[in-house]
């Protein structure tokens, strides 16, 4: 389908002019991206093979081969961060996809056709992650935060809980915040996909005597297959990038309970100034993201030409 709408049907003269001019359209953007993305990635790979140190703008890069990666494997803080990242990502993806689907189903209902609902959905997506983090820091405050206030009033707890005081609980509270912020985008994705399902399918099913649940299971879900797969991949990639939230809410604490790979790479590089090791950590994250991105593109473009 991509082929048919892409190229304009033209005569031979046009095509040659076409071919000459097209790269000019593309080149400036590609050059910028190459400088800002491709070059740093290569640089980062090289950095990770050195024991780089930056001092007063001078970079020292004594070669150290795979030392950084060997250290990475044995480093307990890395394995702890990997575990946290795995937990965080899996739970967030499941949470966001399920909640996103439920929200999309809700907003797809005829009773929810008011456009205002979609605007409400956009709000968590639009606000800055830093502002969001600061807000939830206030909500989670153990003495005056509204969460404790509400739960105390409802009688669900009998004394204030220090939400960010325990390592595992803090990780879950951070998860909650990010799920809240990430669900809207995925919900909109699902909503669009839902609205693409022909209503006739549902009508036919009704005529055949199918219940709402059966309609969901045999029509809705299969049609959402691709969308769900896309949502899973996208959200996984985004879960790997969480930073602002952790920086403001917990700074990795308590007791490194909320240190994920991304945050660890930042701390190693910009707090301890170990640029080579930090680059190695960053490359690991990058590799994971790259693999996921490739899967994503294959999902979106099953018949796309692989180069030519």
């Amino acid at each position, binding site marked *: 389908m991509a082929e048919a709408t892409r190229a304009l049907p033209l005569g031979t003269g046009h095509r040659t002019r076409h071919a000459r001019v097209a790269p000019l359209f593309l080149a400036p953007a590609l050059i*910028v*991206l190459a400088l800002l993305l491709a070059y740093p990635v290569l640089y980062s790979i090289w950095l990770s093979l050195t024991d780089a140190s930056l001092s007063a703008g001078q970079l020292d890069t004594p070669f150290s081969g795979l030392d950084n990666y060997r250290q990475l494997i044995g480093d307990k803080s890395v394995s702890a961060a990997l575990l946290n990242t795995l937990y965080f990502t899996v739970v967030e993806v499941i949470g966001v996809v399920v909640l996103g689907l439920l929200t999309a189903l809700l907003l797809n209902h005829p009773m929810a056709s008011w456009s205002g609902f979609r605007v409400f959905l956009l709000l968590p997506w639009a606000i800055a992650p830093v502002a969001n983090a600061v807000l939830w820091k206030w909500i989670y405050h153990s003495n005056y935060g509204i969460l404790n206030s509400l739960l105390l009033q409802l009688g669900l707890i009998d004394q204030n809980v220090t939400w960010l005081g325990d390592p595992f609980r803090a990780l879950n509270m951070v998860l909650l915040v990010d799920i809240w912020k990430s669900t809207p985008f995925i919900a909109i994705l699902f909503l669009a996909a839902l609205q693409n399902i022909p209503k006739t399918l549902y009508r036919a099913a009704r005529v055949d005597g199918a219940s709402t649940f059966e309609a969901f299971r045999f029509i809705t879900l299969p049609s959402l297959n691709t969308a769900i797969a896309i949502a899973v991949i996208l959200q996984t990639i985004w879960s790997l990038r969480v930073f602002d939230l952790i920086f403001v809410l917990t700074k990795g604490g308590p007791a490194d309970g909320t240190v994920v790979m991304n945050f660890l790479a930042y701390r190693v590089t910009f707090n301890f100034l170990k640029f080579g090791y930090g680059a190695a950590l960053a490359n690991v*994250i990058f590799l994971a993201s790259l693999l996921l991105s490739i899967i994503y593109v294959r999902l979106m473009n099953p018949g796309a030409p692989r180069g030519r």
Partner: protein
Amino acid sequence: MAASQSILGRAGIVLALVVFVFAATGPIVWLLLSSVLQQQALTSIPPDLSPSSFTLANYLEVFSSAAQLGRAIINSLIVATFTTALAIILGAPAAYALARLEIKHAGTILLMVLAAQMFPAIVIAIPLFITASKLGLIDTKLLLILVYLSFNLPIVIWVLRGFFMGLPLGLERAARVDGASPLQTFLRIVLPISLPSLFAAAIFAFIEAWNEFFFALIMTRQTAQTVPLAISAFAGQYQTMFGQMMAAAAISVAPIILLTILLRNTILRGFADGMLKG
């Protein structure tokens, strides 16, 4: 789905909608509310919401504090505007080329552009920080404007490409028959009718740049500080001046919320362009 709607079913939907609205907007409303409440009101249990507790003092304090919020706002505005403009100028032709013109290896290029959107910032931040240090560009708005292109450009390309691919071929075909070059077709015919999508792409890029924290954290010190950094400075302080913390956050959040509400249709359409036209 109209015929068999039981009362219970309808009530369930209404309940679900109420929960949804509360969950989606509750925290944000609380943010805005807290920013205009006095410290005593916020530290009472439960929070004191009587009319006498409301005040604008938090905003006044926040502006006169050491975090230089005024300068941060100007910096954020300048950086977001220029990086968005650059992203559009560079990205629109690229998106058009990928949508309409024959490009060799278009598939691979597309893959790269898409993958670019997903880079974890840390992997490019370290080399860019080193390079910028050597060039003496640290703590400048110019650096941020350029670095932000790393995520804004792919966003713009992706959204606009989706839109361009959805345009009916007729207009462009007619222009070609009249002898117009691809550039002329693009500038004279395609761009003018793409304004809504251009606008949507610009809004996305602006919001991303306005909200960006990580690059700003490591690449700026004082002069080029942006609003997200100022907010984090507040959160790093006492952590007991809650109203001020919320006021600082509100300064970043309120304009974006306004933007989102006013331009909701454009934004939603931008989502559609970016998401569905794979």
